[in-house]
């Protein structure tokens, strides 16, 4: 599905490039909008291109906003929270009571900061992608892969911390099976673990770009038809998709957080 989508986008891109030689309008803005654009050129160090892209910039904006928001809302301790503090607290409370504690139990205290940070970071990144002029950092596979990598690292650390290195490694070979079966079981367990985290990265990334591609594709319908008369229909669908994107922004932040909690919880859980 995704591959198809990407292929289509790429095709569209080429077609538009081709078309734009003749006319000024096209749909190249779709791919242009989704891909990272360099903002500040920086040199390549140790094979890593340190150029600041608009996605990196958005991450910084989101981070700064988050820090400022929490600092501002909780600048003074109050018994009864009001306004922004109350809203943020509702989120924190929900995450703590409905995601972290049910999946991690008492151990959740240690991992709560990571899961809370991930949730708010992803949520704000998703939402900022909807702001005109903004860019969706979570629509960049590099960003989501890094976030999934963090969850992966947290899962491994949590497991090792709880069971010790040996105990944790033993968990890849389920107890009560013939020794020879481990030849199959260990790779299967390893692959299933890697797949989970790989899916975590792809899920967030694909959901975020899918909404944008839909909106932008609908927008290009107007340009393809070159008629104002057609515009109300794509516009109605664009508004609907945009509203849907707000919902998806919330859902994906929630999904990433709850899956991270479930993975960490599975890692610290006693053998089943």
């Amino acid at each position: 599905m995704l591959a198809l989508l990407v292929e289509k986008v790429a095709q569209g891109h080429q077609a538009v490039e081709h078309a734009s030689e003749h006319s000024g309008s096209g749909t190249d803005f779709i791919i242009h909008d989704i891909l990272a654009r360099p903002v500040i050129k920086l040199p390549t160090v140790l094979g890593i291109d340190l150029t600041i892209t608009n996605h990196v910039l958005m991450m910084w904006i989101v981070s700064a906003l988050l820090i400022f928001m929490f600092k501002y809302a909780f600048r003074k301790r109050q018994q009864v929270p009001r306004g922004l503090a109350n809203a943020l607290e509702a989120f924190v409370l929900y995450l703590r009571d409905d995601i972290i504690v049910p999946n991690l139990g008492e151990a959740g205290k240690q991992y709560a900061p990571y899961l809370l940070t991930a949730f708010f970071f992803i949520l704000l990144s998703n939402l900022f992608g909807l702001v005109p002029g903004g860019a969706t950092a979570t629509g960049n596979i590099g960003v989501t892969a890094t976030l999934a990598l963090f969850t992966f690292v947290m899962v491994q650390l949590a497991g090792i911390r709880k069971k010790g290195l040996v105990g944790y490694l033993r968990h890849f070979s389920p107890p009560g099976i013939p020794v020879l079966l481990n030849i199959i079981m260990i790779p299967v367990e390893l692959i299933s673990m890697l797949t989970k985290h790989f899916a975590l990265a792809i899920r967030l990334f694909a959901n975020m770009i899918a909404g944008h591609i839909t909106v932008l594709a609908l927008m290009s319908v107007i340009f393809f038809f070159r008629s104002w008369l057609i515009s109300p229909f794509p516009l109605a669908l664009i508004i609907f998709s945009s509203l849907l994107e707000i919902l998806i922004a919330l859902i994906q932040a929630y999904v990433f957080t709850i899956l991270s909690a479930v993975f960490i919880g599975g890692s610290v859980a006693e053998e089943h």
Partner: protein
Amino acid sequence: MDLMTPEGGTIFWTAVTFVALLVILTKVGWKPILKMLDERERTIKESLEQAQKARIEAEKTLASQSEILEAARKEAGDIIARARQSAQEAREEIVVKARSEGDKLLQRAKREIELSRDKAIEEIRDLSVDLAMAATQKLIGKTLNKEDHQKIIQESLSELGDLN
């Protein structure tokens, strides 16, 4: 720049940004907030327990108060009943006393009347004797002797007795 290829630079900056955010938010956000939430939950729990305790206490007090009130009401009723009874008794006593007093007075009055009447009759009798004597003396012109005298008195007395 390819859609499906993670770039080193993006990964690097994401990691740096995310770790920094994690560290800063843990310090300024999560730790104080989670601590505050725990504290508030504890406070609420304690307050609820205290309220529960206070309620039980209040109920106890109320029960004992209503007990006291009931006792007081009963006592008041007793007092009123007793007072009413003693008043009744006193009234009856007073009535009886008054009646006996009245009777006594009446008796005395009767006796006095009787005495006065007797005295009056006596006086009338004496007077009538004197008058009779005087009249007879005038008529006969002489003084009757003692026997005649006596006889006449007896006669007139019997006449008076008939009058009586």
